[in-house]
């Protein structure tokens, strides 16, 4: 297995259609057909439930986005040391980090989520000091377990990427930093970390899109994200397809916005020769 593999091929900015050469005769026909399909879906399927659930859908989307960004940021903060100790750390840090990445990447996220929620959730009440601590009101809720599982998963996948990125920074640059009299910490802060993050940035974007696609799993542990709202709609209205189609559309819009935003940021980061 090569080092560069991530857990799937994420949608990246290069996949977006280019505005030039987009409109061609066959595309116009296809788009007309697609528009017809959309009109048919809008007319012949039942959408009368939609206004009633709009506020809940909005808050569900916010929960999904909060899950995405909090876990991506926390996971990245965890991924930096994970990647670093695998490159330079002593063996008693390197081996556990390696093991952590292997175990998390080798088991399904759903299983990890359920292990944390049901496993820890059933274990914690047995300890009185946990029940009496200030954390208990939070530990009784579902979302901390969702955040924890998603963060660990993101950290493991991104830690693997950061390991490659740290190892890939040219030695000469680090030697140059040392020659200028920088200490270890200054070298890390000024040279090694920025260069590694720069190298990891394209994969980081992809990982974030994949993380968005993992967030609906938290609905299985009763976190009310947009997926859970749609499940509720399906239970209450007995509709099969309409809510799911809407959900797919929502996620496509969110992914599209993420990808476009990343393209904007990527264009702002200077690269050599581009």
């Amino acid at each position: 297995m090569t080092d560069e593999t991530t857990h799937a091929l994420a949608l990246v900015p290069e996949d977006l259609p280019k505005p030039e050469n987009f409109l061609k005769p066959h595309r116009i026909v296809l788009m007309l057909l697609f528009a017809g399909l959309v009109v048919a879906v809008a007319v012949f399927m039942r959408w009368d439930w939609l206004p009633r659930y709009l506020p809940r859908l909005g808050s569900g989307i916010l929960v999904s986005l909060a899950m995405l960004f909090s876990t991506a940021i926390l996971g990245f903060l965890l991924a930096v040391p994970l990647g670093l100790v695998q490159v330079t750390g002593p063996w008693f840090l390197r081996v556990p980090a390696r093991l952590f990445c292997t175990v998390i990447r080798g088991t399904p996220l759903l299983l990890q989520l359920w292990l944390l929620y049901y496993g820890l959730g059933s274990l914690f009440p047995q300890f009185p000091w946990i029940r009496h601590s200030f954390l208990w009101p939070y530990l009784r809720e579902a979302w901390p377990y969702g955040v924890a599982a998603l963060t660990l998963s993101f950290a493991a996948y991104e830690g693997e990427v950061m390991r490659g990125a740290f190892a890939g920074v040219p030695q000469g640059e680090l030697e140059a930093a040392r020659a200028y009299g920088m200490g270890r910490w200054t070298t890390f802060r000024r040279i090694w970390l920025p260069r590694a993050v720069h190298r990891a940035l394209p994969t980081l974007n992809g990982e974030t899109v994949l993380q968005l696609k993992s967030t609906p799993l938290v609905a299985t542990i009763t976190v009310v994200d947009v997926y859970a709202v749609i499940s509720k709609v399906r239970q209450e209205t007995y509709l099969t397809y309409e809510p799911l189609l809407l959900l797919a559309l929502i996620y496509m819009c969110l992914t599209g916005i993420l990808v476009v935003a990343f393209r904007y940021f990527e264009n702002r980061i200077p690269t050599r020769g581009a």
Partner: protein
Amino acid sequence: MAADSLINWSLLALAAPGWGGVLLQGFLHSVEIAIGGYALGLLLGIGGAFGKLYGGPVLRDLLECYTTIVRAVPELVLILLLYYAGTDLLNQVLGAMGIGAVDISGLTAGIFVIGVVQGAYSTEVLRGAIKAVPAGQIEAARAYGMSPTKVLRRITLPAMLPYAIPGLANLWLIATKDTALLAVVGFSELTLVTRQAAGTTKAYFLFFCAAGALYLVLTLVSNLFIGIIERHARRGFAEQR
């Protein structure tokens, strides 16, 4: 105090009071679906990659829509949609043909769903790999008068394999983990039976860790084979780095 209640190894026994046999049965289902879905995805991927590279403009755009949608919508949502839509559609077609509704087994539906998702990813992997084959080799085969299928069988597929194997190996690992999502539609694969076992016996940690170990073993054994296959496919390549 929690130690005795936490680890009760007899729960993992293979015979009836223990849940080990049930777990292994679920694991077997997971592997079956992963293999079936992966194979279906590979077929779709080969078709999709060739369609994207050599197809007409309409086919190319439709395939682009397919891969974009699958890569933009969460697998969980796709699985639900395909699961209901696929079984519904098949029953309607069969009903129209006058055969009447059939009960589609969870295994078939699972393989179909995972296959469609995998197909989009392998389309992208194979397309990249085919593009990495030097164009001169394919042109030479054409110049020798080989028919398109022969070019495919003798030149393109074998030549692209070294480029495709890392991506395809990665897809296999994804397929094994994606089978866990079928737990949400109620198919009794490893993750769901684990949850049932854990819920019945209240030994959550034991069962989830056991299932995790099974998945991990599957991944590690797969990695072993992937390493062998990769080395075999890359023989004759100049060693990089």
